[in-house]
């Protein structure tokens, strides 16, 4: 399989934080969601992909090229949106475009103007006068205007209204219809990923917890809701996280079949959402 992004054994010690042996792959033609709690290492992974920080070990291959040796070629074919767009705030959007466009050999000004219209971007207005949502829209328009093969989006939907968020998700789905393209999408809004992501990579404390197809995750992970019998020692190994509250016990497991066999009639078993998985895996050994 040809990968748009292939990360192997990536490590980085960075300001008291350690990214440890991170590996995952994103095939062409797919969208991958990168999820994890704050400080898990999502932005560090993205910075390493973009060479904004230097890796201590491991390998990053983007569109078949090493991200250090093939940096210029890769970045020509890579669109990105940072969690905060870093453009000259005092310039108008039309002038900000002038600072960005000349650096891309495949910049498509028609596409940029089309997106600016579609996103209602006021090109005569100064960047600093825009809301966070509008700034993100501008960054997205720039990322989608130079025929990128890989989009890397760091929290692109935070600050966006639900209507535009849905439009964006549609746009990303349309983007990967060309099977040579792919999207890596880091977000806290896991419901967005349930709509469009083909793969989910969950990172916590600088380590990958899983990186698997979305349907496989959502089919295998369940939340078991029952009484204190769930806390019995023989069940502990089954659960990835347990929450105990005034109204009973909830536990997360990646073995839906085994959970149904053990607790079929004694407990309520519900399909886990990505948010459930993130919550239990992060806070899952305590009281609710």
């Amino acid at each position, binding site marked *: 399989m040809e990968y748009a992004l292939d990360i192997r054994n990536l490590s980085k010690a*960075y300001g008291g934080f350690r990214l440890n042996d991170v590996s995952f792959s994103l095939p062409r033609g797919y969208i991958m969601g990168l999820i994890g709690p704050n400080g898990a290492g999502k932005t560090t992974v993205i*910075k390493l992909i*973009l*060479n*904004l*920080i*230097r890796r201590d070990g491991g390998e990053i291959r983007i569109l078949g090229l090493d991200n250090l040796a093939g*940096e*210029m070629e890769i*970045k*020509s074919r890579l669109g*990105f949106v*940072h969690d905060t*767009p*870093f*453009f*000259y*705030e*005092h*310039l108008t959007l039309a*002038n900000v475009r*002038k*600072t*960005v466009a*000349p*650096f*891309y*050999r495949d910049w498509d000004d028609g596409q940029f103007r089309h997106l600016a219209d579609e996103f209602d971007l006021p090109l005569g207005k100064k960047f600093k006068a825009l809301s966070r949502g509008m700034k993100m829209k501008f960054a997205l328009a720039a990322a989608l205007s130079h025929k990128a093969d890989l989009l890397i989006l760091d929290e692109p939907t935070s600050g966006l209204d639900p209507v535009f968020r849905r439009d964006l998700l549609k746009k990303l789905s349309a983007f990967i219809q060309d099977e040579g393209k792919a999207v890596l999408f880091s977000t806290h809004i896991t419901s967005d990923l349930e709509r469009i992501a083909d793969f989910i990579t969950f990172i916590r404390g600088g380590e990958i917890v899983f990186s698997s197809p979305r349907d496989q995750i959502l089919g295998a992970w369940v939340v078991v809701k029952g009484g204190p019998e769930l806390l019995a020692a023989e069940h502990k190994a089954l659960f990835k996280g347990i929450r105990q509250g005034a109204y009973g016990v909830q536990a997360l497991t990646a073995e839906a079949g085994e959970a149904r066999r053990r607790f079929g009639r004694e407990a309520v078993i519900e399909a886990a959402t990505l948010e459930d998985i993130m919550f239990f895996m992060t806070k899952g050994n305590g009281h609710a």
Partner: protein
Amino acid sequence: MLKLIMKDLLAARWFLLLVLFIGILYPIQPFWPTEILPFMGGVYGFIALFIIFFLEDRNKTEIQFLSMPVQRRTIVRARYLLGSLLIVLGGVATTALSIIAFPLTESGEPRLFLSMEIVLAFFLMYAFGLSLYLGCYHRLGLGRGTILFVIAAIVLITLAMLGLKGGAKSLSIPGILRALRAFLGTPVFLVAAAAAVIVPFAVSLRLSTRYYARREF
């Protein structure tokens, strides 16, 4: 490299025009001597460069441009080229202004703004200053780099002035250069002067490239 320079000039164009306006006002102010006007052009160049770096730093645009197809070494080279251009343009503009505003001395003699020694003194002084500033900037960042440069510049200028005062009364940098030219002969003198401009510049560029390659954002 030119795209980066054009980007910087576009981002800072109004601020640069303000610097130019202040430069034009200099000849009509009564407090500072008019003889140093051509040398002020270099100072304006430094101020313009600082403004460009300040805008970049305040908006964190380095993160944006380093995520784009731009190499770090190209960014460093573009800064050296832009700094050189601003200083030379500042020098040329203020020299032209000096010739127009003060063509003659009080005794009616033409002023010697364009003597070889004066031009060389300008290049030597500012090439060294720019090499020092950009080295400090790439090693320490805008805030600490600029403070260190200003302190180093004050110390060096003070030492140079003390050294000159300790010598003969007529001793000056152009005077020393004139004596050196007479001693070495013009061709050797010019080669030595070019080396004195190029060597610190090249060393600083090499070190800055190395510092910037290691920097994390």
